[in-house]
């Protein structure tokens, strides 16, 4: 062991060659991280867009349903209303007044 020079390895790769490999690996790692960051940003943007679309759809659906209900309520009239609308105030006064008899207790 005494004749063995320290740090020497029995391989062909020169220092310059290894430096190039290191530089390439460094740049690839940096570029990969930038891509990952961009992908993450796109994911957040997509998630936010989906949330906005879903929330918007829910609001539109809710409003539309309420409006339809109001429209139905507005358009439909009961036969009692029809009858009352068709008679005059005097005729209303003349309508017999019914008293509901109390139901005796058993």
């Amino acid at each position, binding site marked *: 062991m005494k004749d063995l020079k320290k740090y020497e390895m*029995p391989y062909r790769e020169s220092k310059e060659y*290894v430096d190039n490999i*290191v530089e390439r690996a*460094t740049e*690839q790692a940096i570029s990969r*991280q930038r891509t990952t960051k961009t992908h993450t940003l796109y994911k957040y943007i997509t998630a936010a867009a989906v949330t906005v679309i879903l929330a918007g759809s829910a609001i539109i659906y809710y409003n539309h349903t309420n409006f339809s209900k109001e429209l139905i309520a507005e358009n439909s009239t009961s036969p009692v209303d029809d009858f009352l609308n068709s008679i005059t105030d005097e005729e209303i006064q003349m309508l017999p007044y019914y008293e509901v008899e109390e139901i005796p207790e058993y």
Partner: protein
Amino acid sequence: MDSRREQTQLYEMLRNPNLRDEGFRQLMAQYGNRLYWHIRRIVVGHDDAEDVLQETCIKILDNISSFRGDGQITTWIYSIATNESLRHLRRQTHLFQSIDSLAPTLISKLQAETSLDSNKAEVVFQKALLTLPTQQRIAFSMRYYDELSYEEISAITGKSIGTLKANNHYATEKIKKFIKEYGL
């Protein structure tokens, strides 16, 4: 290892998102070559070493925010490189097979990757290293080639200083014996 001031400066750059890329370039320019050879001594093959170095760079950059700066940055990057190298070796083993059983494969790789004009003593020394158990071989290489202190090797491998000293002694004896058998 390098001065504390340089390490702090580098650490500050790596912590700053605006200076991180430049800091990482500086870190790799400073330690990349050593890191490559550290990996190469573990995985032996050049292509393997290149792959592991790439993975190591990605891991360093991805986890830079988790480095607290209470230890040396070189120790931290050596830990990542060592773990990635071991992970690479583990991928080459079968189920329940120890990475120590890869020694014959690694010796074949060593022979394939050394040129005819390689120093015979260096090749024999590498072969002797490859006969050691993997963890012992890594610790010995870090002490012998990278000239790391036992404290630094302990921080990288998680082994106690006493164990490392004992292992280093056994490793040296085994290598001496191996080389003697080769008549060098």
